[in-house]
């Protein structure tokens, strides 16, 4: 099944291939390559608009996830009943926000990958509303990124590091 990348903004130049190649590895590691996934790159204006509508927070943010399968237990893979169910949902990346958060020595596509991985974990039922939930999510992200680091030689850390 497909990873579909869309770029709805012009503030930050986005090359799709580097993001795709990294996320293909992440999807493999998570065992979800059979599922459709959408990654949509948006600017601050758009992500703030979405944040306001769906989370009542009128500020831009780095990532918002919209799961296809709601109420999944953390780390539970969806059980599709039909071909249409092979869908995880969409991850909106606030690329303008992420770009401005990037430190000087950080690779933008590495940070995009870390953020998209975080968003993907949300699609798979992980949350960080409590310390226990956060611990589960952090462990999952760490596992995935360590494997990704082994494949790519990067040294990525989970987005949720230091949250609690």
């Amino acid at each position, binding site marked *: 099944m*497909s*990873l*579909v*990348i*869309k*770029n*709805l*903004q*012009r503030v930050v*130049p986005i*090359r*799709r*291939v580097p993001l*795709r190649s990294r996320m293909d590895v992440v999807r493999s590691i998570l065992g979800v390559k059979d599922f459709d996934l*959408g990654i*949509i790159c948006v600017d601050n204006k*758009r992500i703030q*608009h979405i944040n306001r509508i769906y989370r009542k927070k009128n500020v831009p943010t780095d990532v918002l996830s919209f799961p296809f399968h709601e109420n999944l237990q953390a780390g539970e893979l969806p059980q599709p009943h039909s071909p249409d169910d092979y869908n995880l949902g*969409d991850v909106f990346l606030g690329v303008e926000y992420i770009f401005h958060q990037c430190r000087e020595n950080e690779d933008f596509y590495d940070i995009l990958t870390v953020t998209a991985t975080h968003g993907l974990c949300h699609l798979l039922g992980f949350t960080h509303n409590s310390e226990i939930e956060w611990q589960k999510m952090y462990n999952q992200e760490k596992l995935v990124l360590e494997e990704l680091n082994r494949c790519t030689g990067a040294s990525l850390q989970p987005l949720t590091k230091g949250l609690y």
Partner: protein
Amino acid sequence: MLPLLRCVPRALGAASSGLRAAVRASPLRQLLQPAPRSCLRPFGLLSVRAGSARRSGLLKTPAPCSCGCGALHTEGDKAFVEFLTDEIKEEKKIQKHKSLPKMSGDWELEVNGTEAKLLRKVAGEKITVTFNINNSIPPAFGGEEEPSQGEKAEEQEPELTSTPNFVVEVTKSDSKKTLVLDCHYPEDEIGQEEDTESDIFSIKEVSFQATGDSEWRDTNYTLNTDSLDWALYDHLMDFLEDRGIDNTFADELVELSTALEHQEYITFLEDLKSFVKSQ
């Protein structure tokens, strides 16, 4: 004044051929006969004799206007010219760009009527982007919402934008082939930009054509992206991005195309006014 004449749907070609077909099917000659102006000599009255049927003035060919220009002048033409005068005035008032906006990056612009060509050279590669502003304004939907109680309906015209298909041609200096990519803007309804999740532009078809060959060859393989592998599609998009054809370019092309279309529309109205006036 609402620029009512500017609601030109994409299917204008089909609509006009439909109109022409309707005219052929049911002749409207009687309706096309002019109502004579007062300056015309009343030839119909001169031919009246006692006891004979009066010839219908509608069947007589009207004499040329006494102004001597040799053309036909009707009350309808006069009203038409007055209408066009007002329309041209209003269109010039709302004209956003008096001259064509510039594209960022070192693009050279050539305009030939309704066709525009952007040219650029990047490290031995020649890149051209061609588009035509005819039929480039998508139909305006909406406007069916009723005003809420107690409020007047505001006269809100949707801003007409021109989103033409554009063809990118990439020629490398040592190649006899030109890579041709047909790109489209999404067919979204106007005013729904906030909620759409479409790319700003997409590649629809890709093919090779012989460099310098002005004729399009149907026998060359054309890749349709509708069912293309997404990874390959992303490579094509990155290929264009490297050559300056990215979302910024696409947005600026809309500005340019809209300005050109508006300019051509005003020129057309002026030509129409001169033609109808014919003085």
